């Protein structure tokens, strides 16, 4: 119960922070919706953790609900890192194109 309260407090903090960022137009609408859903789903998962325990046990997992949620979170994080790596590669390639164009256009100038 205490653990649930701590987790819900942390989520509440992030939700307030999200609302504050939205109010000051620091994040885009799409990003706001994504994080709002993310934290709300996290809160629901914590409120109904017993049901999730039963669900994962029913699916044949040996760990508790929270452990399975952690595994999923790690997998999602890896996916995001991979996406980031690809995006970085694309940016690197774009920088090269710009540097090249400047080099050719500036030939002979110092």
């Amino acid at each position: 119960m205490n653990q649930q309260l701590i987790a819900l407090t942390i989520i509440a903090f992030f939700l307030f922070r999200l609302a504050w960022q939205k109010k000051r137009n620091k994040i885009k609408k799409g990003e706001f919706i994504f994080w709002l859903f993310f934290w709300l789903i996290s809160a629901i998962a914590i409120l109904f953790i017993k049901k999730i325990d039963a669900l994962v046990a029913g699916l044949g997992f040996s760990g508790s609900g929270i452990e399975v949620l952690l595994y999923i979170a790690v997998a999602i994080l890896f996916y995001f890192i991979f996406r980031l790596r690809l995006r970085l590669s694309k940016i690197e390639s774009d920088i090269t194109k710009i540097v090249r164009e400047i080099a050719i256009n500036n030939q002979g100038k110092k």
Partner: protein
Amino acid sequence: MSELKVFCIIPAWNEGKNISRVVASVKPLVDAVVVVDDGSSDDTYDLANAHGVVVLRHATNRGQGAGLQTGNEYALLFDADIVVHFDADGQFLAEEIKDLVEPIKSGEADVVFGSRFMEKKSDIPFVKKYVIMPLARMVNNFLGISGMTDPQSGFRALSRRAIEKVLIEHDDMAHCSEILMKVFKNNFRVKEVPTTVIYEEFGQRFGGGIKIIKSIFIKKIIS
């Protein structure tokens, strides 16, 4: 046959120690020398410029592959017929440029690679010769490149037609494998000629080889 214009592309990064000697040795043998200063922090740019050759300057370091592609694009803009890729560290011999260019001039090949593993003997470090190169050959075979004695040659000549098709997208050292892959994919006529390489430094190490494989993998996904 009218004379074909030969451009020599020399990508250089912090090569102040060698660039003057290299440019001076290459300049009399080609129609144009294009040095691509890849964001050097030393006097590479000024030293190359003092020879009256074309010097393109990358505002920031982008890698050898990026330098070569910049040189290629410049060469295409200024009507080059043949482009030679040459290292700035002085490990290639300028007098061997004619051996690479000749098969293209005579219409025998579209792309000519210098090989360290044919008749001419290069003093290749042991680990490079017996560990890194066999592994590089295996990777090349996996990528569909076969029949090359030298899997990672940086000394090469390409016809204008080949330069137009073979766009170097790997900014880093993976460009060697990339060029080979694209040359084979486009069914260009390929020839290898023996060349000499003088090793003052080890060059590409095992870790570099791993980076090349990673780079090829990432590029395959995003392209």
